[in-house]
């Protein structure tokens, strides 16, 4: 009974369609850009970096407090609780403000929350402060590349991708 009435209504009011269709189109157009999810981070940032580095690991020793907090951050990140993960990383950064791993981890979280400017900032800072070689260097630049891509800087993204491969010059620069 209702259906009949409904279709009758629809038939009687083509104007409704005229209004609906543009609205639907607008809704589609206005969708926010796709976020970078955890999978994409693995495939575009972490895995290639780990592959490249095979052998050159330049990690700073983490103090136990930072270890505890980063472990909690990883758990939160896996559970999709990105703001919580950020919170743990911020606490860790208060303890070790210049730990490049923390900064890079934060950059990756920012990619996942689609905060590309901040992903860029954290990755750049991690690079500046870090060893500038090895796996973390590679992660830095790949993050920068993904972020720039999402910020519509295709050439910047390309340059960053290339730069990532140079991280594997196994001899660290001595300045």
């Amino acid at each position, binding site marked *: 009974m209702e259906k009949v009435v409904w279709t009758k209504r629809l038939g009687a009011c083509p104007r409704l369609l005229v209004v609906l269709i543009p609205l639907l189109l607008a809704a589609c157009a206005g969708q926010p850009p796709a976020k970078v999810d955890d999978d994409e981070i693995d495939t575009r940032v972490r895995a290639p970096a780990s592959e490249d580095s095979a052998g050159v690991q330049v990690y700073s020793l983490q*103090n*136990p*407090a930072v*270890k*505890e*907090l980063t472990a909690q951050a990883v758990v939160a990140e896996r559970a999709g609780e990105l*703001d*919580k993960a*950020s*919170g*743990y990383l*911020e*606490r860790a*950064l*208060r*303890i070790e*403000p*210049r730990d490049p791993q923390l900064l890079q981890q*934060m950059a990756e979280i920012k990619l996942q929350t689609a905060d590309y400017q*901040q992903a*860029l*900032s954290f990755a*750049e*800072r991690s*690079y*500046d*402060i870090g060893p*500038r070689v090895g796996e973390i260097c590679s992660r830095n630049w790949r993050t920068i590349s993904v972020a720039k891509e999402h910020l519509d800087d295709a050439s910047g993204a390309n340059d960053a991708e290339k730069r990532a491969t140079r991280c594997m010059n196994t001899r660290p620069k*001595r*300045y």
Partner: protein
Amino acid sequence: MARKAVKSKSKSRKSRSKRTSRQKPGLFRRLFRLLMLLAGLAIGIGVPWTVWLDIQVRGEFEGRIWDVPSRVYARPLSLYSGKPVSKSSLLLELKASGYRQVTNASVPGTYSVNGSQFDINRRAFIFEDGSKPATRFRLQLRSGSVGDLVAVSGSEDPGLVRLDPAEIASIYPLHDEDRTLVALKDAPELLVTGLQAVEDRQFKHHHGVAFRSIARAFVANIRAGKAVQGGSTLTQQLVKNYFLNSERTLVRKANEAIMAVLLELHYDKAQILEAYVNEVYLGQQGKHAIHGFGRASEFYFDRSLQDLEPQHIALLVGLVRGASLYNPRRNPERALKRRNQVLDIFEVTGLLTENEVKKAKGRPLGVTSKPRSGGSRYPAFVDLVRRQLKRDYQSSDLSSEGLKIFTTLAPSEQEYAQQAVSKGLDDLKQRGLPADLQSAIVLADVASGEVRALVSDRVAGRTGFNRALDARRQIGSVIKPLVYLLALEHVDDYNLITPVKDEPLSLRQPDGKLWSPENYDHKSHGELPLMDALVHSYNQATVQVGLSVGVANLIRKIKQLGIAVEVPAVPSTLLGAVELTPIEVAQMFQSLAAGGYSVPLRSVTAVLTPQGELLSRYPLRFMPLENREAIALLNFALTRVVEEGTAQALHGLLGNNTVIAGKTGTTNERRDSWFVGYTRDRVAVSWVGLDDNRPASVTGANAAMRIWARLFRSLPIEGLDLRMPDGANFVWVDKQQQALTDPSCPGAEQIPFIEGSEPQKKTQCLKNQKGKNKESLWRKWFGRKD
């Protein structure tokens, strides 16, 4: 017409008897009409008037309804193995968080100390990121840092423990006044009964106005020939407090009486009494009024209301009649008399025994010499918190009750900063500087922009002018680093050793006058490397460089560093004829200290609902600036300011050689002294000057830098990391010759250069070396300064 004729006829024909018999009804009728008119007026005006008064008084009453205030917390102290912390700062933090020192820390909220061994029983607490149960642990302090953390209860040793944060204020974010609320059930009984005994014995029985009291007072006043007694009830006094007005006109009194009756109609005795206890005017602190017994107790005795003794309560109750008249600090004798009078009333009404009263009378007033400030020991910092909350939140969010506001303050560092100012200024006085100097300090974390300490007054805890946030003063030489930063960004024209001219110059100002800046030693130093001009803060060279990079660009740079202030586009801006506040200066230099990663300085990290749910968080966000290589070069130069320039006394004051970047600032006629300095993790600005801006004989080095050093002596500090970013390298050069050189050559120094801007020339010494030692060429040219 006929009537008139009849009237006139009747008038002319009236006999006296007839007139009198007719007058009575006429008079009566007129009186009656008059009464009706008055009644009509009374109702016509009186009713709306009363309704209006009703709206007013209820508005006031409910407007002040005792929302639970929002609690403001300092940052929680994180403890972990390796954390640098001194014994004194740990004790300060425990004290600030309300921990009691005991012999056996078996109860949460206590700790015991044995030499450098601490046993701490941490309370349960809902932190920003969730709740934690109580936990007991031990730690040993070893050479200035925490050793291992050991669990006491047999559970796993914690890697990281946070102390529950100090509660630093209770605020109503939307109002400007701090109040210390007292619920009626928490108020001391003596206060509640004593108030009634002294001010309103009929309180329980009357309906707002006590006619008996009024009559009694009336009689007493007539007898005495002047006003000696007030017949006002507590309710009437409450109304009077709402509309504090010294006029005691009849109209005012009538209004208050009506409103008192209306209040009693709407609210019960307990509500009215509670409102009274929290509302009554009891004193003044500058422009802040002290309302309520809770605040008054802190203000006069630096104690909470629950900790007061009978003679204290008597004093406060006595103040109700005249807070200025019986001010115990201004008029101690009169206050004492009044207090004893009140104690007598307590005795007569059976609230205290004869012995108790005798004992109480024998006690001194007990008032502290310095009033404690608006509910917080850190009014300057709490002021910053308020402003940032207002700026970043909607009123609708902040009007919620009982919010938990987590901030960035570090109580121990705040304490050190305040001492640095208070003791520092006293020391300056000993050295012959003006006795009324004032000062401000802003201390923040470089990487996060979190404000750790804010000092705005030489007197701790005094509420008044917030100098750290509002003292807008010329910054003088503190601007120079920005001028040289601009120069260094012009890679083709300038590097750190480019020769610049420190020579006399004259510029015609827009007003026609000639401006001829001089150096502080009244000498000109000729041609010298750019770096040296900054290190020695030479004015003439700075103006030369500044004119070449352009004042407009300097103004743009200031904006870029986060400061939105109108700056005049005139040459004197190059020498700091720009007015900024200490926090603005701190903001500018935070970016430089962080190697070009700008973070807005902030005081709030999160706001939680009373139930502990996250309402909002201020996440860490920074903005990388362009030309970070130039910033790295500048930071190097600023470490030289401390090594060999205008701040060379700093290492002596600190007692160590930690690598620090700094800049002194002195303004015209020595009105202002500035020092901004940063280590790897902290940046601080200190300012010294006179509030009325008269010449103060202060220089950057002799005043502000001393205070900065006092603070940093108490802080664990790491030297600045001078590692260059990609695109800049340390190179061995000879400054004077503007040439590359070998480390073994005389005059050789390692100085950073942006790639491509190094000198191409080689010194003769290097040329000779080159011949000798070809293999280590790579090493020599690109060696790092360790």
